[in-house]
């Protein structure tokens, strides 16, 4: 492609995707068939299926509901809410990864299962998307109870996330304990996103040397650092 466009990167990429889409056109028909098979024409609206279809769908994909990969699929298909699929998102998502059958999807999910804990960018994409899914109708933030559930999934290796507690510092438990104590009801988008950034850094640098009171961390995270300090007996060093 590069040669064809005389090394114009932008045009090369465009051409690549145009070709790609041509090939994927073939996927539209089988994917639509899969999509329709989960749509209940009695209850679901045109071009989307709801929670019942979703349950069945995940069952067929051999995905447990308390696995992060569920959110991975939701992100791929750009689900507007938990357990809701639109035809457009469904087709675009799977077309992008070139899958058209349940078994192909299962295979892709296998990769995704591996990628989420291993690749920080994938993890972050799924994590951030899950904020949108976790909001209640008409709210800007996420209820603390729901957020806590999600954190427990994302920061736990057994559900396909990353490690949230270490031998020296139970970061996730501390965070939840701190939030509980503080009684914060609603988690803002900013806090949701910055917490993931913070925890990643904290896991790498358990002494929190990266943290700086003058930096832009949300106030709640600053206060959390004080809380951690207290837990460690007045110091930020691992004890």
């Amino acid at each position, binding site marked *: 492609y590069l040669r064809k466009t005389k090394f114009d990167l932008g045009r090369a990429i465009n051409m690549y995707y145009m070709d790609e889409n041509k090939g994927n056109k073939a996927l539209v028909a089988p994917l639509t068939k899969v999509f329709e098979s989960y749509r209940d024409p009695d209850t679901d609206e045109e071009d989307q299926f709801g929670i019942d279809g979703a349950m069945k769908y995940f069952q067929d994909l051999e995905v447990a509901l308390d696995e992060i990969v569920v959110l991975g699929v939701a992100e791929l298909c750009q689900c507007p809410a938990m357990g809701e699929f639109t035809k457009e998102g469904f087709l675009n998502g799977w077309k992008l990864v070139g899958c058209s059958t349940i078994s192909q999807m299962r295979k892709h999910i296998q990769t995704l299962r591996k990628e989420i804990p291993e690749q920080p960018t994938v993890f972050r994409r799924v994590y951030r998307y899950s904020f949108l899914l976790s909001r209640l109708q008409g709210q800007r933030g996420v209820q603390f109870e729901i957020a806590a559930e999600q954190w427990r999934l994302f920061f736990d290796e057994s559900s396909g996330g990353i490690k949230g507690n270490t031998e020296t510092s139970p970061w996730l438990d501390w965070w939840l304990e701190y939030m509980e104590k503080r009684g914060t009801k609603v988690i803002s988008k*900013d806090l949701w996103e910055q917490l993931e950034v913070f925890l990643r850094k904290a896991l790498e640098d358990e002494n929190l040397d990266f943290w700086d009171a003058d930096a832009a961390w949300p106030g709640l995270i*600053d206060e959390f650092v004080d809380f951690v300090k207290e837990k460690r007996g007045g110091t930020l060093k691992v004890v």
Partner: protein
Amino acid sequence: MPPTMPQAPHKDDLDETWSFLESGINSVMHKLEEGVDMKHYMALYTAVHNFCTSQKAVASNQGLQAHRGAHLLGEELYKLLGEYLSRHLSEVHEKSLAHSEEALLAFYIREWTRYTTAAKYVNHLFSYLNRHWVKREIDEGKKNVYDVYTLHLVKWKDDFFENLHAKVMDAVLNLIEKQRNGETIEQSQIKSIVDSFVSLGLDENDSKKSTLEVYRHYFQRPFIDATRKYYENESRQFVAENSVVEYMKKAEARLEEEKARVGLYLHSDVTKSLTETCLDVLVTAHSTLLRDEFQILLDNERQDDLARMYRLLSRIKEGLDPLRSTFENHVRKAGLAAIEKVASEGENFEPKLYVDALLQVHTRYQNLVDEAFNGESEFVRSLDNACREFVNRNRICKSTTTKSPELLAKYTDSLLKKGSKAAEESELEEMLVQIMTVFKYIEDKDVFQKFYSKMLAKRLVHVSSVSDDAETSMISKLKEACGFEYTNKLQRMFQDIQISKDLNANYKVYQEKVLDDDDRRRMVDAHFQVLGTGMWPLNPPNTAFSAPPEVTKSAERFQKFYFDKHNGRKLTWLWQLCKGEVKANYIKNAKVPYTFQVSTFQMGILLLFNETDTLSYSDIQKATTLAPEVLDPNLAIFLKAKVLLAGPDGAKPEPTTTYNLNYNFKNKKVKVNLNIQIKSEQKVESDDTHKTIEEDRKLLLQSAIVRVMKSRKKMKHVQLVQEVIQQVKSRFPPKVPDIKKNIEALMEKDYIERLEGDEVSYIA
């Protein structure tokens, strides 16, 4: 005059010429006081002239070679003169050995004077040589050839001075030491010696110019060394035996003395190094000792000694720096102690007490800075720092820094309110100026503004200002300190009151036209104030209230009048701020009917008793629709003043309790004020004010953040925080976590967003 005058020498004969000259010079050197007659003088002069010119004449016959001869012979004469001088000086030196100390000085000066005077004459005698031979030699760049006068000096220096200077200096230094020890000495001797030393400073390259080298080397250096040693010893000893205060006096006197010494008999060139040496030895060497004394002097308020210390230490490099922090600490402690004393009086002290305590400390140390520290700007700054510290952080405002501005505002109110001990106008102005002094130090200026505007509102509404002039003066002072924005609302409040006055006048005219006779009989004499909602820190009443019909009628009439004038405006009746007077005609034993000054709420209650003498609690509540929080305390006031009597006696305000009109009411005054503010109300009001301050601060911070972000579009988080602090600092000192919180709040509202790398950007 020499008895026999030798014959003029033959002009070609060197020896003859010289011996003739020598005897002449000798007489000039030794017997000048006897005078030299003109003839002899001329003869000598001519001999020199003849000697030189004759050679020239001969030389012109013999061409080039002779030209050289003139040189040689001129040189001979020059050399011989030099040798003669050396001889003379070694004689003088011999003689000097017989003298020492002061006698030596006298000898030196005598010889010096004689020698230099003679030198001037000899110089004249040899002026022909000077003009020709010497000039040529110098022009040709020969070293060590000088005009004849200078030759004298050079010889003096080389042959006499070099051998004697140490002894002379010893004598000089001994003399000075004597003077330092308090003896009287012959100062002119030293002066002469100094002059002599200075004269010996010859410029190697240009004999016309003199340098101070000789003087510096042979006089100044030993003198400074001796001075240093002398004062080292003296100060060490003095300090050991005397107090620091005494020492400072001594040191100051010594410094003065040395300065005077320069003027008396030293060369002014020495001033700088002498002063430096003295300061070094007398002040710098003991600066730690002095500084240690500083605290003690402060504690004892020894203003003169502090001034002395300031003068001494201000003269050495960085001498005052350690004092500044000590001073700052001291003032802060004094301030805290003063407040501690106020606080120990208990919870409910007068705001005046607090402000006075602050002012007292400030005034005391302001004076000290002015008097003792010369009003030096760095000390002023230390004072300001200390005051800011104890004004904003002390025991009374331990929990919150907003207590200081609140108390200050209350104090201001007490001054500007009618009924306080009416101060003279000038006195009041003075006090307002003092208030501004404290105000300057207040960090939470917004708190002061809030409380001030609340109280101003009350003064205006209740027409209880002591004078409009004082109010205006205070506002203009605040405006000067904080700018237009700070006082904008206060000024608008003033305007509203003014407009209301005109309005009432117009209303009176209007009323005349519309009232009928019946109305006139029942009319209530009323004054109305229309106040802009946005400007006044007033809230609508917190209780329902059915005004008595008499009042309602007037109110409605005014409302109609107002709406006719200003269509589309909304009027809210602030009943809780209204007041009135009712006349009690029912009371027995009253020659003159009592007048009760009451709030509208109270009026509402009392007027009910026009119909009946006894009412139950629930009746009253139903009729007035007042909330119990308002009704109960007001009833309590009536009971306390015995306007009403409760039945059964002492009953709590319950629906069944009845209230009877007291026909036997008695009071010393004819006018009885029942419109007393209730304690709990005051507390609530203060709490409310604090709450609105919190809200306002949030808004102020957020608007500052948006303002900064709007102009910068994108910036580092840290910078943003700094900018915001800068912007709001003049109103209150913001806390960083609060700024952060508001940044996050704005993120929530999508005004700004977080970027990678601690950056924030503005969303248009």
